[in-house]
């Protein structure tokens, strides 16, 4: 009889002890605020910590004289699994009087993009990169179709 009573109260003490052990940890973090890692997102919008390679959206790089490196080879268009990229090309006459293919519009449908990075990897001239901007939500989906080459931009000399 006494043995059963001892077992009964023993199990109660053991159970309470196990609960207190967990509560001690909760109390520790309740009083140690330095361990908190939560980001105050909308407030720290200007300096959100982000990796260098964060995939936000596809952008085309332009240098100071408004030149890009895209030759219009459509490697990214072929690599894209969702049909996100559409390159509209035109014929241009260069300085030597030869006809040459160049991009007219680099259309990028952000709404269809899954950020799989396949276009960036496939680009032979490193014309497009992933940018860090991630706040893309919009009331109108027309704003999600972007033309990546700036108006009046030309291909950089020496990029074939």
């Amino acid at each position, binding site marked *: 009889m006494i043995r059963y009573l001892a077992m009964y109260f023993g199990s109660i003490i*053991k*159970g309470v002890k*196990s*609960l207190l*052990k*967990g509560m*001690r*940890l*909760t109390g520790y973090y309740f009083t140690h605020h330095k361990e908190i*890692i939560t980001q105050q997102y909308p407030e720290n919008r200007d300096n959100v910590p*982000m*990796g*260098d*390679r*964060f*995939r936000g959206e596809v952008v085309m790089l332009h240098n100071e004289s408004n030149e890009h490196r895209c030759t219009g080879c459509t490697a990214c268009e072929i*690599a894209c*699994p969702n049909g996100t990229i559409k390159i509209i090309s035109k014929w241009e006459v260069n300085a030597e009087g030869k006809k040459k293919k160049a991009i007219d519009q680099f259309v990028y449908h952000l709404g269809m993009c*899954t*950020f*799989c*990075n*396949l276009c960036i*990897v496939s680009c032979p001239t490193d014309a497009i990169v*992933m940018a860090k901007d991630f706040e893309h939500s919009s009331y109108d989906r027309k704003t999600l179709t972007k033309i990546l080459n700036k108006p009046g931009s030309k291909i950089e000399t020496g990029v074939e």
Partner: protein
Amino acid sequence: MNIFEPENKKLVESEQDFVVNVGPQHPSTHGVLHLKIKLEGETIKAVQPHLGYIHRSIEKMSEAGSYRQFSYLTSRMDYLSSHMNNQACALAVEKAIQVEVPERAKVIRILMAELTRLASHQLWWGAMGLDLGAITPFFIGFRDREEILEIFEDTCGTRLTMNYVVPGGVMVDLHPDFQKKVVAFLGRFKKRIKEYDDLVTGNIIFEQRTKGVGVISAEDAISYGCSGPVARASGVSCDIRKLHPYDGYEKLEFKECIETEGDCFARYKVRMEEMKESVKIIEQLIDNIPEGDFQAKTKNVLKPPKGEWFTRVETARGELGVYLISDGTMKPYRVKFRSPNFSHVSALEHMSKGGKIGDLVAIMATLDLVIPDVDR
């Protein structure tokens, strides 16, 4: 048979039967799984899972993409172990085009896979605590997972659906800070795993809710097709990393965690042990990542010969198989994924029959179901 016929007909046999719907929008189902439960008082008499709420036909969509394109979709199946899913597809394509992966890429793949396993088990641990009524584990599990996701973000650019493992190796090289960050994380995590035990493992409420609940025997686990931690908790040795090593797992020293009870607590113990084993695997590799290429030289357009290939990997939840059929063109003829969670859903009724409705929550929590992997 009319498939649109309400299945309640089968479930309800007499007027005394009481049917409760759990889901599709229920927090303990971790997604859009719909369970119809037949009750007698509070005892479960039958469980009927209804699937298809998040079916995206990934297998069919895979046929539309090229051999480089289709594997990005698999990150969206079992989104908590997306590296392993991509790895399974990459292994299948590599087997088809017969490409030898460089040593560096293999090591990176294992490192990423084990980090994913850690992150997945941490999320499971937190969500399981939340299901069983404890909120603190959720915050602690997610705090540690966050550090791993930051490591992923540095190297891969994304946190959940990475698409980092590609046929021939990995997509880009490791971030220069990768090694430093992983070593720092492991140092912290080895101290923190004691907190996991303090909070949940010895807790009397947790023990009483999981011990002897949802028992599945080794024979039943095999016949239901269970794999991963669920089968290992019943005493079935089924670790693909040990039995059919891939990407150089055969060179590593790690233990296959096996328990014999087959109840919820055994599944919990197996996953906790696996976290410690994953830490050991990462520690063996992190200080000696070989130099060299991160990707093998492959042709721009992959064209495997006619044939069929099957590869499998051990994801955080079990065995993922990829069955690839090629007809010699640049697109796969058929891709079939054998996902672990689908089999676990079928075993759910066997485990929960005769138990209470509260036990079902504990069973769902320790099965660690990811519903997009069930439906695909």
